[in-house]
Every structure is written in C-alpha cells, then in structure tokens.
C-alpha cells in the first residue's frame, strides 16, 4: 500500500495518444541474422610512399579569457547655452567697487607701484612694435585675390547629415511640412500631424515646433494649434508671422513675438472641410494675403487681418460649374511671385489645374488641366529659372512639364519601387531637383548630368520620408519623416553652384523635349482625325476607336471584344498546329503533311 501512495505522488506527466492499429502500416517483421561482414579494407603499407612524416606538427591553441562585447551610449544630456554677465570683479575687500572715490584712489595707488611702471614699460614697447608692424605692412595680406578662384567640380557629389531634430513627444507624429526662416538659415519650422486615418490617440500632442538649427535638444518655440498642423509657412515679408493649415480644415496664424497660441484662426464654418494640405503666402502690398488648398475641392484666399471668412473661394470643378461634388481634391499648390496672376493646383486625381486669379467669372478661373499622373500630386513647383516648366511629384514618378503641352509631361523619371512623397527644384541650379520617397531615401537629380537615375541617392532614415524643403541658398535641405524626425542635410557645393553654360544647356534641353512632345501631340491628333474620318465612312459597326466622346462602358465592351478575338485567333492557330502534329505521328502518310 505504501508503494502505491508513493507512486501516485511522483506525478509523472504522461502524454498518451491513440492510433488505430490499421493505420500503422505494415508490421515490422524482425528476423535474426548472423553478423555479416560487408567490407574489409586491409592496411596497405605500399601507400605510405605517398605520405611524408610531418614532424613537428604546428597546432594552434588559444587560451584566453572569454570576453564579451557591449556597446554603451550615455544618455543624452541636455545642454542649455547661456551667457555670462561680466561684472567688474576682484576688488579687494576694503574697496567698495560702487564708490567712485575709493576705486579711483585704488587705481592711483596701483599706478604708483614700481612694479606696475616697469612691467608696463616693457609691455608697452613690445606692443608698440606690433602696432607699428600692423601699420607698415598687412601681415595677413591675401595674395592672388584678384584671380578668380576656379572651383573645380569635386569628384563626387555628396550630401551629409548635419543635424537631426527628433519629435520630443512620446507618441511620434509625421513631420508633414517644413518651412525655412526667411532671413538666412538659422531656423526651421516643422509641422507635425498624424496623416494616418483615425490613428490619432488621446495623448498625441497637437504641437508643432520651430527649431533653432544649432540646438537639437529642444525646439526654440512651440506652436499650439487647435488641431494638428498639416502645413506651415513663414511669411517671406515678415519673419515673425507664420501661417498654418490644420487637419480639421482651419487656417491659423502665429506671431512669434506673441507666443505659442495662434493670433487668430479662421472660422470653422467658412474653413475647409478636409485637412488643409498646402498654404502659400501671396505677393501683396500688405503682405497679409495667403491662399490654401484642401482635398475638399476648394481653394480659399485669406487676409490674415480678417480670418472670419475667406476673401475669395474657388471650387475645383473641372466642368466649371462650381459644383463641389464634382470637385477635384487639392493636394498641392503652386504660386510664383513673378507670375502673380497665375497659380496651379495639384489634385488627388493626378491632374494639375492651372488657374487664373484675375478671371472675371469663376468658370474662367480654371484655365486648363494637365493630366498624366496616376495618383495624388504631392508636390508641384515651377522651375525658378524657367517658370514655364514645372515639376510634379506623384505616384512613382516625378515629371517635368511645359506649360504649352497639356497631354503629357516633357520629361519624366522611371517608375520607382517606392512611392514618391515630395519634391522641389534647387533654387541654385536650374537642372537640379530633389525628391523623397516612402522608403526613406532622398534622390538628387541633375538632368544635365544623368537622366535615367538620380545623380545622388541617399538613405536618410529607415522610415518613410514625407516632406522636403530646400533652403534658399540651395545648400541645405530639410526632410521630414514619418516618425517626426527632421533631418538637416548639407549638399556638396557642386550641386548648388551654377555651372558654366548650365542655363543655356537647360534651356536647350527644355526646348528640345517640348518640341518633341509637340510633334508627338501633332502626330496623335492627325492619327485621331484619320481614324475618325475612316470610321465615319466604314459601314461595318466596328469599335469606335477614334471617337473622343466614348463612354466608359463602350470602351470596356470594345476592349473585351478585341481581347476575345485575339484569344480565339490564338486558339484556332493552336488547334491547327495540334492537328498537324497528330497527323504526323499517327503515321497515316509518313512523309506527307496534311494541310488542313
């Protein structure tokens, strides 16, 4: 009995599984067999001639302590620069530094000291020598100053990261827009918001920041909007004013002298109904005008002195009826101060709409459209040197257009593996532009140097890059990523200095490509005209290829018909071939091939 109890207490964990005997397969039939010798290789002394005795043998042994490698990075400590106030110091205890009398007396005493006199005589003579030296000859004279410094193109174009500004909040948001401070490159304003639908959490901050380029620890100023900002722009005329478009469609403006809260916000009823994707300052006498675009299909003009309602409104309806339901959602805006009456809007549908601000009726406001992209146009900018040509960045390509050609871009990049999210021209060189992609790479293109690939491709970070802005000198650029990291990069001088003949070469290239597209367009038009006249004359009810007014269903039906025709033709051909093969092998008539 005792035994039983102890057995139970040992608690064996047993796994039992059952299987039907019939499922086991054939049983193993073991049989006894005596040992069998299969192979017996006897030593062959004659083989020793093939070998040499090695004596001594080198054997490597290692006898060391086991070590392990660790990397340690100290926690970033925050530094704060601050100035020191110099105050006259060192006065001996018996002298009150505030009392003029006492200080003068002290000074007089020192001046009478013999040591003082001697020392100063010595120092004085030495000093005089140097002063005279300075007056005689400029010892730091720059030789060869008159000669032009011929800057050679350094071997490789390069770019390096200068600084990285991380979103100080716990929950990271995307850096959706960057704006450089108008006077010089000392400050960068970055707008942060979460572009992912309904991913906004309760503890996600709404703040956007202005960073001082030297200090990556802490932003210089915080902007606190009511809703996260999607876009943010410094006023080029007044560097204290910034305007921002927010996720809920409102526009707000800040004055950095007045603090973090917006000075005024647009009224919700009159604002956009979708996030404001782009806001641009306009050229005006007062310097207070701006306009904004959003995917709700409207472009609104604002005067910041009166934000209660927009001064003007345009609905991007391509049928020119002002119908909001038909309207194209706007993703990007373009405005060039040299052409103040024109502006362009890049839409969600992949179409660029060119508009005239001074048109009398809203219908006339929309001048023309340029189509060619398959996805929303994230960036739209005219070439600063050749305003007739503009760059669009959308889907997987970047395209360069000429204003005169509506149907197609004149130049385009290849289709990339990752979506392009932003791009801009270099303000220093007409043939250079920058693009950023969703895989975190920055591409610098110089189409006078290489057209198929970017001149320089740099992986900035592991997450997607969402925004890009180049500073006015063309040398620094800022990229914003999905996790709110703004990276400041400096590019090599070759990429931001105007090369000899560059303008002429770029002009020639644009003209050539525009001409080519014009010729192609003319050809297409001719072909279409011919098709149309042909189909009008033909009696058979064939597919109406030439007609431009075809409905979508008719096109689909026509495409289906053509497809099946091709398939049937293929099958017939294969059937014939099969028959031929069969008859060959059936051997009815060995040599003769039956033609069917």
């Amino acid at each position, binding site marked *: 009995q005792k035994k039983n109890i102890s057995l139970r207490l040992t608690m064996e964990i047993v796994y039992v599984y059952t299987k039907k005997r019939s499922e086991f397969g054939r049983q193993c039939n073991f049989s006894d067999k005596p040992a069998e010798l299969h192979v017996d290789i006897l030593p062959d002394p004659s083989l020793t001639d093939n070998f040499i005795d090695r004596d001594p043998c080198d054997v490597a042994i290692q006898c060391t302590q086991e070590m392990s490698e660790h990397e340690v990075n100290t926690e970033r400590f925050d530094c704060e620069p601050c100035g020191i106030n110099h105050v*006259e110091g060192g006065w001996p205890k018996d002298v009150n530094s505030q009392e003029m009398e006492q200080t003068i007396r002290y000074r007089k005493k020192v001046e009478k000291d013999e040591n003082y*006199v001697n020392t100063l005589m010595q120092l004085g003579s030495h000093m005089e020598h140097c002063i005279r030296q300075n007056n005689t000859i*400029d010892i730091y004279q720059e030789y060869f100053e008159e000669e032009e410094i011929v800057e050679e193109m350094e071997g490789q174009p390069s770019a390096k990261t200068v600084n990285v500004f991380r979103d100080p909040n716990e929950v990271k948001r995307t850096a959706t827009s960057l704006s450089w401070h108008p006077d010089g490159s000392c400050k960068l304003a970055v707008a942060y918001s979460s572009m992912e639908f309904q991913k906004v959490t309760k503890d996600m901050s709404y703040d956007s920041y202005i960073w001082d380029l030297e200090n990556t620890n802490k932003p210089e100023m915080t902007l606190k909007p009511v809703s996260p900002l999607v876009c943010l722009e410094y006023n080029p005329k007044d560097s204290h004013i910034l305007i921002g478009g927010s996720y809920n469609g409102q526009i707000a403006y800040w004055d950095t002298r007045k603090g973090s809260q917006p000075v005024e916000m647009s009224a919700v009823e009159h604002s956009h109904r979708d996030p404001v994707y782009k806001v641009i300052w306009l050229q005006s006498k007062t310097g207070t005008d701006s306009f904004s675009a959003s995917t709700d299909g409207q472009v609104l003009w604002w005067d910041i002195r009166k934000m209660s309602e927009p001064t003007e409104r345009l609905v991007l309806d391509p049928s020119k009826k002002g119908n909001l339901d038909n309207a194209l959602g706007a993703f990007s805006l373009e405005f060039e101060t040299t052409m103040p009456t024109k502006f362009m809007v890049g839409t969600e549908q992949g179409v660029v709409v060119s508009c005239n601000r001074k048109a009398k009726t809203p219908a006339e406001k929309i001048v023309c459209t340029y189509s060619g992209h398959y996805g929303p146009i994230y960036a739209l900018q005219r070439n600063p040197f050749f305003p007739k040509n503009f760059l669009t960045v959308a889907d997987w390509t970047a395209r360069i257009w000429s204003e005169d050609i509506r149907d197609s871009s004149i130049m385009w990049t290849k289709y990339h593996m990752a979506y392009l999210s932003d791009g801009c021209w270099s303000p220093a060189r007409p043939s250079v532009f920058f693009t950023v992609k969703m895989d975190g790479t920055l591409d610098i293109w110089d189409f006078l140097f290489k057209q198929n690939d970017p001149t320089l491709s740099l992986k900035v970070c592991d997450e997607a890059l969402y925004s890009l802005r180049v500073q006015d000198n063309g040398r620094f650029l800022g990229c914003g990523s999905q996790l709110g990291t703004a990276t400041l990069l400096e590019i090599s001088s070759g990429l931001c200095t105007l090369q000899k003949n560059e303008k002429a070469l770029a002009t020639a290239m644009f003209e050539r490509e525009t001409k080519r597209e014009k010729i192609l367009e003319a050809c297409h038009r001719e072909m279409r005209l011919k098709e149309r006249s042909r189909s009008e004359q033909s009696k058979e009810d064939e597919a109406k290829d030439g007609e431009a007014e075809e409905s979508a269903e008719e096109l689909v039906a026509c495409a289906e018909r053509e497809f099946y025709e091709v398939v049937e033709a293929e099958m017939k051909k294969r059937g014939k071939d099969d028959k031929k093969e069969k008859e060959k092998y059936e051997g009815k008539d060995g040599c003769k091939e039956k033609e069917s």
Partner: protein
Amino acid sequence: MLEETLKRIQAHKGVIGTIVVNAEGIPIRTTLDSSTTVQYAGLLHQLTMKARSTVRDIDPQNDLTFLRIRSKKHEIMVAPDKEYLLIVIQNPSEYLLPQ
C-alpha cells in the same frame, strides 16, 4: 615716462582703445567706456590664461609672449605679464601698398 608711452600707443594710427588690467581683472587704465572695458577685460583675461596654459602644456619651458586676435573688423593685441595685461585694439590700415 609711462604716461608718455601709453599716450604714444594710443596716438598710433588705427588704435581704437587701450586697456590695462591687473591679475584680479580690475581695469587700471582704459580709454574705452566702462562696460566695454569690463567685457574686454573679463574675456581676454580668460583667453590669455587659456593660451598661456596651452603653450606651457606643449612645452613647459615655453611661455606666452604675445597674443594677437585678428577679426574682420579689427585686431586685438594682448601683451601678457604675470601681474598685468596690456590690451590694445587696433584697426589695421587698409591703405597699405603691398611689398
């Protein structure tokens, strides 16, 4: 004698100001206004100490004899001593003929 020397230094072409500071940082004599003097005295004292220690670190037998700081606008010359510092700010003449 000393007065003449100092006056002569101040009278040279291009000299903007002269300051004499003692080891405690007290300006003994100055031709500039007091706030500028205090600033120059404090900053240059520290810089001279640093320069001297640098020179002596490299070669303990060496010592700093003179310090010249050329900037875009002018040149600051510091003649150091154990007890005192003679500081002169000069604007080197631009109308010089090259040698």
